[in-house]
């Protein structure tokens, strides 16, 4: 057997290494690799096909006919958290449950990615600072949260900390207009009062943002030609804010903010991030930020001492050096692994099962599957969803890498 593998390897690979010239078509490396590929494709397809056949057969033995007709059946269970689509027990169908699950996964992923990026950069910069205490604190943070199993961390925050220590609604912890208690996080939500005027207001806002980009290009051209620079960011931001606020009042307040208010027993108004979502978001943020912090540290460390000396020797000030030399070089090292961390965070959100957050794996690949028995279709759709997330990530990464290659080579 082993001999056979070796002979196989020698036969197919050796001439690639020693560059033997082919005497007939079977020794032509191109022809041979085409044959190998064809065989491999056949094996892969055959494996999947027989798996599929077996599963369909087994399901039919149990009286389940594989078909998508269950999509339009009404789901007989409740999905408690559905901020984007309306859930109505007895009306909502299975396919809508799938959409709710996908949206809930994307919600916790987006919230987690934003928070983990901010926290990760903060910790990573602390880790690279000259302050001994800050450095050691960041080191311990990274080592603890990177190395503990994520499932354990999710359960720890949810059961040992938040459920155990957060107060009942009446004694909520207050963070501005946000209130945290044992049921979750109460947040303000915007309520659109006049749909048309709201759209007009959004249009004005988008228009002024586009205008600020045009202004930025103009200012850059002017600087290239005359050397005179303008505080572009400050001007743009203040103009956008002034236009946003004044048009809000001119249009007669097209939307209002609904604040959570404490009633007799619970909050009225506002929105609620239920505790499972809050715990999951918190744990994913802390866990992922430890990895991002490590990327940031590595990125900053990748800028050599010589670069900083050269920047100082030509007279750049510290902020200029950070902006023109350190950040561009560090980001090249930081961004690719950080984008992969975003994908990891999205995949890791499926551990929500442990705390009962209703994301796609919980409501679709678990509950819906148990109810309908449609394993094949449900698992395939779940896989395809995560596969799309992953393809999207590699797509973004490829764009980034290509841009870097063009500008560095």
């Amino acid at each position, binding site marked *: 057997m082993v001999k056979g593998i070796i002979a196989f390897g020698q036969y197919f690979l050796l001439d690639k290494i020693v560059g033997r010239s082919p005497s007939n078509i079977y020794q032509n490396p191109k022809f041979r690799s085409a044959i190998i590929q064809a065989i491999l494709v056949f094996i892969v397809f055959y494996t999947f096909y027989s798996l599929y056949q077996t599963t369909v057969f087994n399901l039919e033995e149990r009286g389940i006919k594989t078909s998508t007709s269950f999509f339009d059946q009404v789901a007989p269970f409740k999905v408690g958290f559905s901020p984007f689509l309306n859930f109505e027990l007895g009306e909502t169908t299975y396919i809508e449950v799938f959409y709710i699950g996908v949206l809930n996964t994307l919600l916790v992923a987006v919230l987690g990615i934003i928070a983990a990026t901010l926290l990760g950069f903060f910790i990573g910069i602390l880790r690279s600072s000259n302050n001994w205490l800050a450095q050691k604190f960041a080191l311990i943070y990274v080592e603890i949260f990177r190395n503990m199993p994520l499932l354990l961390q999710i359960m720890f925050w949810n059961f040992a900390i938040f459920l155990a220590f957060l107060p009942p609604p009446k004694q909520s912890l207050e963070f501005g207009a946000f209130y945290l208690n044992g049921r979750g996080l109460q947040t303000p939500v915007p309520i659109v009062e006049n749909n048309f005027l709201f759209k007009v207001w959004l249009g004005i806002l988008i228009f002024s943002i586009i205008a600020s980009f045009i202004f930025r290009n103009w200012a850059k051209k002017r*600087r*290239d*030609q*005359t*050397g*005179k*620079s303008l505080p572009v960011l400050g001007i743009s931001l203040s103009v956008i804010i002034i236009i946003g606020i004044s048009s809000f009042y001119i249009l007669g307040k097209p939307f209002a903010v609904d604040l959570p208010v404490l009633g007799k027993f619970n909050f009225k108004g506002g929105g609620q991030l239920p505790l499972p979502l809050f715990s999951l978001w918190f744990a994913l943020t802390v866990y992922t930020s430890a990895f991002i912090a490590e990327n940031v540290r590595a990125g900053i460390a990748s800028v*050599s001492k*010589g*670069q900083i*000396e*050269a*920047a*100082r*020797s*030509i*007279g*750049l*000030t510290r902020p*200029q050096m950070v902006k*023109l*030399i350190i950040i*561009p*070089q560090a980001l*090249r090292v930081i961004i690719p692994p950080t984008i992969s961390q975003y994908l990891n965070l999205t995949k890791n959100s499926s551990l929500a099962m442990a705390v009962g957050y209703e994301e796609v794996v919980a409501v679709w690949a678990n509950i819906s599957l148990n109810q309908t028995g449609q394993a094949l279709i449900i698992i395939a759709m779940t896989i395809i969803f995560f596969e799309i997330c992953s393809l999207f990530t590699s797509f973004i990464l490829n764009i980034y890498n290509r841009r870097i290659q063009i*500008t*560095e*080579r």
Partner: protein
Amino acid sequence: MTKSDSIIKISKLNKWYGKFHALKDIDLSVGRTEKIVICGPSGSGKSTLIRCINRLEVHQEGSIQVDGIELTDDIKQITEIRSDVGMVFQHFNLFPHLTVLENCSLAPIWVRKKSKVEAEEMAMQLLEKVRIPDQADKYPGQLSGGQQQRVAIARALCMQPRIMLFDEPTSALDPEMIKEVLETMIELADSGMTMIVVTHEMGFANRVADRIIFMDEGQIVEQNDPESFFKNPESDRTKLFLSQILDH
């Protein structure tokens, strides 16, 4: 040399790294357009001395005046001195994420507040002077060591400095590239630039230097014009050093 002629005045300079006494009571005046070569064994403090001149290292005692400005913690003065003093490093230290042209025009744009057009025009002139104008749009990683070092010289010259510091500019280069860099430096010397060059290229020293300084253990052991320095070295340490590097 009269006092008013000197562009750099260093007196009673002492520098420690922790407990290690790296520079001991250095006194040195450099005249306008003077070319000084510093040599000495490894670890003798040559780099430390020239790095003190543009404040890449901070000294603890004594004073350094560059073009009449005393070096202190004042950031404005440090920036002013740095834009007047160009430096070329052993390992080039070009910015890898910027093209050759961008490397050269960066400081004129951000420090001298020149327009991009003007800065790039001047950068092209200087790249022509170091004879690599055709590489302007390449990235440093695409150039040979000798070309990179010439870009580094052009980058420093773009700030129109009055003084140029070189810290072993040819030590990291293959022999066939040393010549092209030395030629560029000789041309620069002939154009009247004030230069302090740490190097062991004694041919270059003989050809260009007004004065050769020999350092050992953080001190200036002896200094002289090239002819006397090579023919009649005064101290035994200098003789030993010269015999070691000239025997090669």
